[in-house]
């Protein structure tokens, strides 16, 4: 005798779920992908900075080692391209030795490119007790895409 009630109840539940589903907004995967890549890039730079490697490679202009270090700390499917500027927007890194990994075409064709800006304040020159501390900021612009 409660079949009608059960059917009505089912209709109400289905109607409620349909109504909620109609308004559900799922964040686009592109947005999350960009955020994830930005987080990845920032963490990689932050780790290298904490280890003292980032400033060392940037200020000694050791671009090959910087590329190798980034390749190690970033996942193999994350392609990157880094450009380093001084405060006058001059590119500091040698264009002949690109700080990049992966196919350059992907950067042109991908819809999801994450960009991270990281700053370095300055550096130490010399050995202990003969250090020279210089305020000389560098702006690191890291672009990331999934390969």
């Amino acid at each position: 005798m409660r079949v009608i009630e059960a059917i009505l109840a089912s209709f109400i539940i289905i109607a409620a779920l349909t109504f909620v589903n109609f308004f559900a907004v799922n964040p686009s995967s592109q947005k999350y992908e960009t955020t994830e890549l930005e987080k990845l890039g920032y963490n990689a730079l932050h780790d290298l900075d904490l280890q003292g490697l980032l400033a060392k490679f940037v200020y000694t202009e050791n671009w090959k080692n910087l590329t190798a270090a980034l390749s190690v700390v970033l996942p193999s499917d994350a392609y990157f391209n880094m450009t380093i500027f001084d405060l006058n927007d001059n590119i500091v890194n040698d264009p002949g030795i690109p700080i990049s990994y992966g196919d350059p075409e992907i950067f042109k064709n991908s819809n999801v490119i994450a960009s991270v800006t990281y700053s370095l304040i300055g550096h130490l020159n010399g050995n202990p007790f003969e250090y020279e501390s210089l305020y000389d900021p560098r702006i690191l612009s890291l672009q990331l895409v999934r390969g």
Partner: protein
Amino acid sequence: MRKSIIKQKKGQFIIIAILFIATMIISIGGMLYTTVTYYKYEPWEEYLTLIGSIELSSERLVELSLSNCTHTNDTSILRTNLGSWQRDLTKIYPGYGVELDLKSVKDPDLIWYNPISFSNASATFSLDISFLGLSGYEFTAISFLNLTIINNPINSSIINATVTREAGNPVFNLKRNNFRLQEDSTVNIVSVTSRYDPNNTLVYIITCDGVISSPVTLSVCDHRGIKVEATY
């Protein structure tokens, strides 16, 4: 007749219960909708990245300035560098409306030539980022290095010392070239080793090539370039 009424009431109860459940589902759906759409348009990670980057760079600036001061005795260097950093931030993050105010600055303080000596500097900042609607985010950057000679080294060839940084954390991996005795000292450092100690966590054992006969001044320079000189 009574049974039929009870059954009808049970049926009504089911309908009412289901209506309540449906109302709950719709309410939760509404809340989820608000949460998801709010999160969608607020790139929190990007904000945290930006704020974290500015905070870390500011800390590095205080470190760099203290390091500079301990080598040059220029106590104004921190304020000079902070002024430059405030100005340059707008170039580094254009379009964000970044404004870094100085709430307070503690110029480099070099308390040296005691058995417990230290170098110290700090600055408190207030960060505004108009693009994010962020206003008055305060943080403090502290740079500190302490050198303590824990034994009386006179008539001995060994100096036991602790080296600590912010929050009393020990400084690891200091080698022989990170320590130095004053230039007119009659003895030289032969080796530097370390041992763990229940009271001081990490103790550096500085072995000299002779017996120390007069008050000695020991210097340490850590990996950040910050120097301290202690006398016993």
